[in-house]
Structure formats: C-alpha cells, structure tokens
C-alpha cells in the first residue's frame, strides 16, 4: 500500500512520483489531460472557497501542436494568491504543500498540480508559467519554472513583477501536456459539469480546444463552511501514525501524550482508558504511565490495538468535515439540470474505524435529465466528482435498480432520474489506486442507503402528486372535449338558444366535480377556448 520510507531516500520525491505516475492518474494521454484539468481546477477552487472567497474559475484548454497532441491547460482563480517567495517551491518542488494536515480538502496527495506540471515537463519539455498575487499585495509576479527532477528543486527560468493597477488577487497557472483531447473530451465536460453541480457558488468558465465555451454562472452566494484541522481520533490511528504522533509530542508520559495528541480524550477518559488497558496502576492516582518515546514496537502495537478497542471514547468530531449542505446541492442541480423536482439531504456525521464521515444524497427528476433504464448516478468524494469505475462504487450498489426497489418510490424505468451521492470524510475509503470509486464499507453503505431512501421518499410524494395532477388534467380534458357537443345538443333541444349559458353551467359542474377552486373557473374557460370547437 504505502511506499516505505527507504524508497524515498534512494529516489528524489519528484523522480519517485514520476515513475509511479499512474498512481496519480497520469497513466495515458487521455487520463493525463483530464487529470491536469482536474488538479488545476481543484487547486483553484480550494484557493478561494476554503478562504471564504466566492470562486471565479476560468479554464482554457488550447491545442498547441495538433500533430503531436500538445495541449496547453490554463486555469485562473480569484483565490488568496501565493506569496511570491513561495511560488517556485509551490510549483517546482514535490511534497511542498500547505495541505499535509488532517482535514478534508480536495487535493489528494497535495501534489496533484505538481504531478501535472511534472508530467507536462516530461512529455513536452515546456516549463510551467504562473502569475499570482495575494490580496493586499501591491505587485503581480510572473514565473516560468522547470522542476529539477533529480534534485527535486525548482529551476526559475524567468521571474518578472509589476505593480497592480486594481485589486486583483489570485493565481493563473498554465502548463502544456501531451494529451488526447478527442478521448478526454467527455470526461472533461463531465468533470466541469459535475463540479458546477457541487459548487453552484462558483462562477465557472470553460473554453475547449475547438473554441466551444460553456459557462456555469454563480447561482447561490452561500458557501459551505471551510473545514478545520483536528487531532486524530484514537479509533482511527495505526502504528505508523502513532509513531509520528509520539515523535511530534513533547509529553513524558502516556497520560499527557493521550490528552494532548488526540481528540475525544480528556483527563477523565485518558485515566479510565489507561486503567482499562492495564497501562497504569489503578491504586495509584499519580501513575501516568511510561514515556511513550521509550515504547518498543510490541508495546506500540498493544497501545494501538487497545486504542481501537476501547469503547469509552466519544465519537469522532466532525468539524474537519465540510459537507455541501442541502441548499447548495439543490441549487447546483437546479442550475445544471433544471429538474422538475429535486431533494437533497445531509445526514448526521457517522464514523467508520475512527474516521468521521458524512453522506449527502440528492435525487433530481425530469428537466434536462435524460430518460434511461437506470438512474444517472453522479458521485463525489470530498466535493470532487468521481467519473470512472461507477459500477464498482458502493453508491451504485445502493441505487442499482436490480437491488433498490425504485418502484416503491413510484419510479418506473426508463425514467429521467438522477441520484447524487457525496461522501465527505477525513479518509475516503477508495477502492484501489485510481481513487475513482469508493469501497463497500458497511457503515458507509448503510448510511448511503438511508440517505437515498430519505430523498426517494420525498420524490415519491412529488411523483404521486404529479400522477394525481396528470390524472386530473386528463379527466378535465376528457370532459372539456365533450362540453361543446353536449351544450350544443341541449340548446337545440331547448329551442335553439342558451348554448353559452349551458356551456357555462357544464364548466361549473366540471369545476366542482374535479375539485378546482372557484377562481380556477376562468382557466377552464380559457382551456375550452383553446381546444376550439371544430364543427
């Protein structure tokens, strides 16, 4: 699973990642082009929304050399910008990142963008160009950078700066990669659309190599609260993590170490845990356990196991999670799909193996959603659209019509049904290295099922109302169809006049029979007028 520390020593980090580029999703020109767009867009959104700025993101993919498939990907954001002195490291040195902390964020390794730059450099030999300016800085800086792969160091080819005339802040990154636009096209469009759904508060602009432009303007100005950093939960740590925590701690006994390094452990619970685990003398309240720095491997293993087993800890805190919220999901789906009905739910936080997670689900029906024999499932992990390997995802297992009885919810396929599932967690249990589908974790699966059921129940109410309305409409249409003939016939029998009055009486009788309120009488008349009476 994870590379051993020895591996890092013999290779530079940059070289290691380049050799293992398929892990980061750069296995072929199609994936690479799509992944480049994706990494840069995610960085751009992170630069804005995690700092409370409503994002404006512009994405350009240009064909540089059609014959060899070189594409220039440029992404511009209005985020906080990067202080000029950090720009070379931020884009030219692998494993330099502000993201290497425990919180939910879009980036996967904290090196996605650098992977794209590295891939571009290795396939085209062209440097990355960066323009950036933080807020309240007076100057804009321009860099042209290559990565020294052997040394894992940035090589600055060019650096310019100039005074800002306005108050612009943000970053523009432009890198050229070898890619296959014709194959990557649908993935990139799906990605842009999927991103627009979960970021309706962002203004997203995209121009493709053929000059086509799509824009998803901002439709809501509410943003999800930015995630916060938290300490790890005792249920979620393994031995390696425990080692790291100990080496970072200055505590001289287990009691102090536990209280300061973990969430959900206070003085009381630390004491009860240590007594339960037999790591302190229960008769001696002054016994605070041994110095964790002196623990041997077997003792560490014991501690890690006991931390997992102990049931007295509070549930993991959920502050590091940043769900989208029902309002944002609804706004996003409305914006992109204009459905007849949409419902979303954000479930209460739960945890699996000490990792907190929140499931969000939504259903949308009708509108621009295409009718299909299966629900259209769109998946997100920590706000990132997951586009591939859908059928092996735990969410598909839940919504698959073969296993989920949609008929109970009045959905009969083919139907224009969209299901959205968003899993946010400090550790999303991906299946395999591709990180495109989520594994079947029982806690997660049952939570997704509950979430989908909850929104599906609301869909059922909508569909049943819609069905009733359609029946009513059909009834009214049937009656209205015969009204002119019946009125005319009656008026003939009554001596030739009063047809208008008879029509009015018939409409009134229909209105009362179908239970339309009195003020709807006019609408019936208008409808009858539209039907016309062709004799």
């Amino acid at each position, binding site marked *: 699973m994870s590379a051993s520390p020895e591996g890092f020593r013999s290779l530079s980090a940059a070289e290691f990642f380049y050799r293992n580029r398929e892990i980061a999703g750069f296995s072929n020109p199609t994936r690479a082009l799509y992944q480049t767009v994706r990494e840069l867009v995610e960085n751009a959104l992170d630069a804005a929304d995690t700092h409370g700025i409503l994002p404006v993101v512009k994405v350009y993919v240009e064909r540089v050399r059609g014959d060899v498939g070189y594409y220039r990907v440029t992404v511009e954001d209005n985020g906080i910008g990067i202080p000029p002195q950090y720009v070379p490291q931020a884009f030219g040195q692998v494993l330099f990142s502000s993201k290497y902390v425990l919180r939910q964020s879009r980036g996967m390794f904290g090196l996605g963008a650098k992977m794209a730059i590295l891939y571009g450099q290795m396939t085209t030999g062209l440097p990355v160009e960066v323009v950036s300016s933080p807020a309240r800085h007076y100057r804009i800086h321009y860099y042209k950078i290559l990565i020294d792969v052997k040394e894992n160091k940035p090589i600055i080819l060019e650096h310019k700066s100039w005074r800002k005339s306005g108050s612009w802040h943000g970053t523009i990154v432009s890198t050229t990669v070898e890619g296959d636009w014709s194959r990557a096209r649908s993935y990139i469009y799906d990605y842009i659309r999927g991103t627009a759904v979960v970021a309706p508060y962002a203004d997203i602009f995209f121009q493709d190599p053929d000059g086509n432009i799509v824009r998803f303007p901002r439709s809501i100005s509410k943003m999800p609260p930015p995630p916060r950093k938290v300490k790890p939960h005792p249920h979620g740590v393994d031995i390696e993590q425990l080692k790291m925590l100990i080496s970072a701690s200055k505590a001289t006994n287990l009691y102090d170490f536990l209280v300061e390094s973990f969430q959900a452990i206070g003085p009381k619970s630390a004491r009860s845990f240590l007594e339960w685990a037999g790591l302190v003398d229960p008769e001696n309240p002054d016994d605070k356990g041994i110095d964790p720095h002196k623990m041997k491997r077997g003792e560490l293993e014991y501690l890690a196991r006991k931390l997992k087993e102990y049931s007295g800890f509070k549930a993991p805190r959920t502050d590091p999670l940043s769900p989208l919220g029902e309002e944002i999901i609804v706004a996003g789906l409305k914006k992109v799909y204009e459905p007849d009905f949409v419902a979303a739910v954000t479930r209460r936080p739960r945890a699996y193996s000490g990792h907190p997670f929140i499931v969000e689900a939504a259903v949308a029906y009708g509108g621009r959603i295409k009718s299909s024999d299966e629900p259209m499932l769109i998946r997100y992990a920590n706000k990132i659209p997951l586009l591939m390997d859908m059928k092996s995802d735990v969410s598909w297992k839940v919504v698959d019509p073969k296993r989920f009885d949609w008929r109970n919810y009045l959905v009969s396929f083919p139907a224009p049904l969209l299901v959205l599932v968003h899993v946010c967690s400090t550790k999303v249990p991906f299946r395999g290295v591709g990180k495109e589908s989520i594994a079947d974790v029982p806690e997660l699966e049952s939570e997704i099922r509950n979430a989908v059921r909850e929104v599906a129940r609301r869909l059922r109410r909508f569909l049943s109302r819609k069905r009733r309305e359609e029946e009513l409409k059909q*009834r009214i249409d*049937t*009656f209205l*169809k*015969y009204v*002119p*003939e*019946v009125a*005319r*016939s*009656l008026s*003939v*029998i*009554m*001596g030739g006049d009063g047809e208008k009055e*008879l029509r009015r*009486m*018939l409409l*009134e*009788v*229909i209105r*009362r*029979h179908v239970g339309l309120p009195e003020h709807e009488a006019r609408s019936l008349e208008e409808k009858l007028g539209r*039907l*016309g*009476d*062709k*004799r």
Partner: protein
Amino acid sequence: MRQMDVEARRRAAATIRERFLEIVEQMRRGEKPVLVMPKRTLSNTIYDVRRRMLLLGPDKIKRSFLDLGEARRFMQTLLMASIIYEALVNDEYPTIRDLYYRGKHTLRGRENTWDTQRESDAAIRDVESYTGLLREEMLILSKEKGKVVGRMRIRSGGDVIDLSRMGHGAYSIEPTPDQIEFLDIDAEYVLVIEKDAVFQQLHRIKFWDKHKALLITSAGQPDRATRRFVRRLSDELGLPVYILTDSDPYGFYIYSVFKIGSVTLSYESERLATPDAKFIGVMPSDIFGDEVLEKYADAFAKLLGKRGLRKILTGKKPVLSAGERRNYIIRAKPSDVMRAIELVGVDTYAPFRKYVESKLRVGGKELRELRRKEHAGYDWFKTPEWIREIGIFFATLSKLEIEALTSRGLRFLAHKYIPEKIETGDWIE
C-alpha cells in the same frame, strides 16, 4: 302534412324536450348531469306472468357525464337526441343510417362523435329508453319488411288503401304503423305467416277472401313495424291472431317474439308484444302425434305431475302419414337442439339426452359443447303444451318447413290444415 303526422311530431318533440330539460335542471341545481334510464340487460328483463309479456325490470342505470367511462356515451346520447329532435321539428323522416351520418363529425383532435353505425344505433336505443319513445314514434324510418292483405281499408299518409285490392302484390307495413288509421274491416282473424313464399301462395288463391282473414307475413324474424301492426290489430280491433311458422326451434322463437317480445329489446314490448297471439303450427305433434312421448311418460310425470301428463298425452293423431314424414322432414342439427334447450331448459331435455346423443351424428367436440349447455329455459315456454311439442322434437330430432305442407297440395294447407286447427282450437296460447 297529415294531421296525424303533425301530432306525432309534436308529441315526440315535446317528450324529448321535457325529458332533457331534466338535465338542464340538474345543472341549475348544481347537480351532476345524469341520465337515469331503465337497465336493458337480460338480468333486468322480467316475464310478467299476468300481462304475458317480457318487460323491463325496475333496475335503472345512471349514465353520468362526469364519469370518465361514460362521458362519451353521454355526449352521444345527447347528440342523437338533438338530431332526432331537429328532424322532428323540420318535418323530416331520417333512417337510422341517416342519423349515423348526420351526427358523425370530428371532435377536437382525431376523435369522432361516433365511428360506426353500431355506436349511433346504441345511441338511438339510449334515446328510446331514456324518453320512453319508440323510434317509430319519433318518425325514424327503417326498411319495410312486413306485408299485409285482406278485407280491410286503411288510411295512410292521407290515402285510403283497400288491402283487398292489391293485385298480386301486398301492402308493405310502413315503419310508422301508429300513423295508420283503420277504416273498416271484414275479417275474423289475423294469420301471420313466417314464410313470405307461403304468404304469396295463399294470397294468389285468395285465402284471405274465402276465410275472412287478414294475411300477414313477417318474412322471417319480424321487424318492429310488423309487430306493432299486429299488436294494434289485436288491441284495437280485438281480432284473434294466429301465427304459423316452421316446425323448428327457430320458428317457435319467432312466435315468442310476436307474443311476448324479444329479450334484447324488452323495453319496447309494452307496445310491440301481442300477448294474445296463438301458435297455430306447425306443431311437432301435427307431424308425429303424441304417441312418441309415451315411453317418456314416467319422466314427464316427475316433471309435470299427473295432471300435467294428462295434458300432454291426449292421444293426438298426426296429420301426415309415415310415408309423407319420410319425404318431408329434415334432420335436426346440434345447433337446433341447443336452441331448443334454451327454450325449455335442461330439465326437459334430460330424459332425451341419451337418445339425442346417440342419434346426432356429430363429433366429440360438438357433443361436449352440447353437454356443457346449461340453460334454465324461459318461463313462457315451460308450459305443458310447449314441453310436449319440444319433447316431440327431442324424441324425433325432426324439423319441418311450412312449404312441406303445401307440397301435399296447397289446398290441404289452405282449406284443411289451417281451418281445421282454428275450428278445433288446436293451438297453443
């Protein structure tokens, strides 16, 4: 325009207006428009023993405009009523085919008011039973079928017609027989003959003149006009009516339609049925006598009791010799047997079952169908007299056409068979 015609029109139009005014009133009261009319199904058809005719029972159906399944039929009924009403006030005489064309047009979209004449005919029946007016009363014409000759003068459409001066032809009974005025008559009874050919033969030899009879043919299954005409003769002139049909279950049923009405159109019986009509022949007992039933006496005793049995076994002698029978009779088919079972019911058939099945040379499929036949029979056929006649039919599996009697000589039919039966009272009431 004849006075009678004008009055009939005024009467019918007024009735239609009055009945449909009720729909307008319903709406004025804020109620749903509903047509309430007698239910025209077999289950609501009742044989009135006292009046001796088929009548509609008390069940009503409600046809509501605001019922999805009935809205179209409601519209059709009103449309038909309006067309009939217009024809009445415009002095027209539409046929049922005319009514179909007059009403047929496209509503919004592709839907037609009606597509086939079946639908418009059903609408005519709805108007009839909702208003209680027969189509003749609403001056709707149909094909003329029945004919009459005899010593009688009538007025029709303002002309006086002498029914004894029709040459070789005969007077076609008009579709609106209520507009016929009876002027004077010199006849003692009415003879209705199923077969047109036999009617013509009797007419050529002026049977009606010699025997003071009104001679009528229905040319098969009687139409409404013929039935109404016969009913008026019976009611208004008090003439006895004798009916002569083939000797087979189909012929027996024609008699039944004249006498008590048809099951499918029982709503008109009150005006069309002639309860006093008598079945004069041809009876199976005329052909075979009643001795063929003697071996079934025990079974009949069980069915009818001793007194009933005495009514059946009267020692009647056949009018045909064994040789004539061999030449004239036709073998019955399984469909005839089925029809006969419908008339008298399976209990009367039961004693003959074995015999019938052994004699009918039919395949297993038809036999199985016959065995499955379940019918209780009609009350008016379950009299000792009919049980005897149809019993003889079962016991002999023989049919006879009236024409067979004429081949023995027209004189035999005209001057012996018919007069003797009337004189001796050898008929079934």
